[in-house]
């Protein structure tokens, strides 16, 4: 599982990235999304302290950053499992077995939507269409790799691989 709590701080290189993001827009408020992404990349999720930190960096009221962070579903406001499995159940996936995949994983890991396994390895989330409808059913891991055209055997393999890659 990602750290329960952390002290948000960017190092020198990361501060250069912050300046780069600010330079892309005519007003620095616009850098709030890229900075929240940087926090999440580094710590796995975005704590309220981290939102305050981003607010201070951009001279924005803290509640503005909170408002932005809570509006977007890909920003995690709580720690997730080491591997956060985002399973699409929208229509095209549903037609091709998206719910079967979701329930299979949920049963196998013994967790429900948005829960984390007790060892902190996995969490699952039912998500909306990820633009992979022709290769349904599918899931995404940690907001990154897509795993498409899933079968239940492949799900087994995937979970084993993730567990063993530890």
């Amino acid at each position, binding site marked *: 599982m990602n750290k329960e709590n952390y002290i948000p701080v960017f190092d020198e290189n990361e501060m250069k990235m912050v300046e780069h993001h600010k330079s892309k827009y005519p007003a620095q408020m616009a850098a709030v999304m890229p900075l929240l992404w940087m926090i999440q990349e580094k710590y796995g999720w975005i704590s309220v302290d981290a939102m305050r930190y981003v607010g201070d960096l951009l001279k924005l009221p803290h509640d503005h950053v909170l408002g932005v962070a809570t509006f977007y*579903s890909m920003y995690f406001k709580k720690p997730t499992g080491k591997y956060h499995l985002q399973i699409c159940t929208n229509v095209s996936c549903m037609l091709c077995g998206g719910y079967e995949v979701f329930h299979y994983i949920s049963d196998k890991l013994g967790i429900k939507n948005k829960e984390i396994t007790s060892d902190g390895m996995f969490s699952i989330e039912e998500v909306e269409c990820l633009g992979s409808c022709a290769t349904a059913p599918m899931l995404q891991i940690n907001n990154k790799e897509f795993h498409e055209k899933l079968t239940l055997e492949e799900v087994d393999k995937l979970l084993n691989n993730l567990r063993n890659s530890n």
Partner: protein
Amino acid sequence: MEKIILKDIPDLDKISVYENNGGYAAWKKVLSQMKPDEVIEEVKKSGLRGRGGACFPTGLKWSFMPKGNDKPKYLCCNGDESEPGSFKDREIFEKNPHQFIEGSLIAAYAMGIKAVYVYIRGEYWKWINIMEECVSDAYKKGFIGENVQGSGYSVDMYIHKGAGAYICGEESSLMNSLEGKRGYPRVKPPFPAAVGVWGNPTTINNIETLANIPEIINKGGEWFSKIGDPKHPGTLLFGVSGHVNKPGVYELPTGIPLMTLINDYCGGVKNGKDIKMIIPGGSSMPPLTKEESLNMKMDAESLKAVGSAIGTAGVMVMDEDTDIVHVLQRITKFYYHESCGQCTPCREGCGWMLKVLNRIMDGTGRHSDLDLLISVAENIEGNTICALGDAAAWPVKWTVRKFRKEFEAKIKEDKADLPAANKVHGLRKSDEYMTISDHAEQGKVEDLMGKVQELTQNEDIKRFSS
């Protein structure tokens, strides 16, 4: 048929391969030989209409931008692609990213824009990385940046990563998101060409729209206007999903028969089954029945004629065994989840429709629920700040109308439940009902009241008609 965007050239995503195949020639031609107004004229002549869903004529949209440089102007390229059933822009990022980049540079030049923002949904991590690299390559080759190709024209391009909000595909929400705010749609007017991002004139175009531009410059607007349906010319990137043998993205001329697309390109319906329903343009578009599908042509006007729309050309095919009520419930759940919550009809209406659909799925629906769904949908439609309200209302209204039998089959025949009716009457009289603190319990009683009311009405009707 020759393809305009998804050309069969290996490694076309590499800038050198793209250049060797005529890439960036249109950009050079524009910079050295064409005035901005001439570019807009050529695009107008092509008849190109936006591929983001609304089919607005692109040249006309560009001509709304103010001339001159009193204020900075912006181009936002809409790669939010979150409408369920749509996955075509992703194909452009992967197969022909430079043609899109070239198209947006030409668009920027035509409108005197110096900064281009490419908004890509955050889930497209892989394709965002591809695009970052492509933009950086185009800078290195001198196609973007200061004084491009010695023309005196300077332009910058930035990629902005979304973070999971369907609503940010709506153009005014996209602008708020880009500014670093919550993605709330804005009230229009003012339109973006007058007051857009950071209060300045802005044009928003879809990725596929822009990817068409280089070939329009290379081969001429007239050439483009003769491809496909004359009122909606060009090709479309049809994304076909659901119950077909070969789902995928197929670039074909507009006006192609839907059955040709499904049978000749997608290998027909899986397991030789029959079609029950087809959603022709992403989940918000009114569905087609099998009968409507058989003779349907896939272009803006043909679909409009049957009350549907081409949308994003995301075709979702459902076979004879599909549970239509479940499909509509899932679609409605999506819009309920994605409503930004600013307007009461959209926020409350989506929740209400979902609640009703949930109970029909549970087997506790009522016959009056079907008209209720249509009525709620019609009260959302046209009464909201942005078109997400309509997008949520259309599928409900039209699926219930066109597939009413499917819904009725899930509603169990009401039987008079006298003890329950008496209980409700008893409760009504006493103050007990008013003091039930448990919401679940209160809900049960309300449900019963609704049933009793309906039964009484039915009884009245029977009495009067006999």
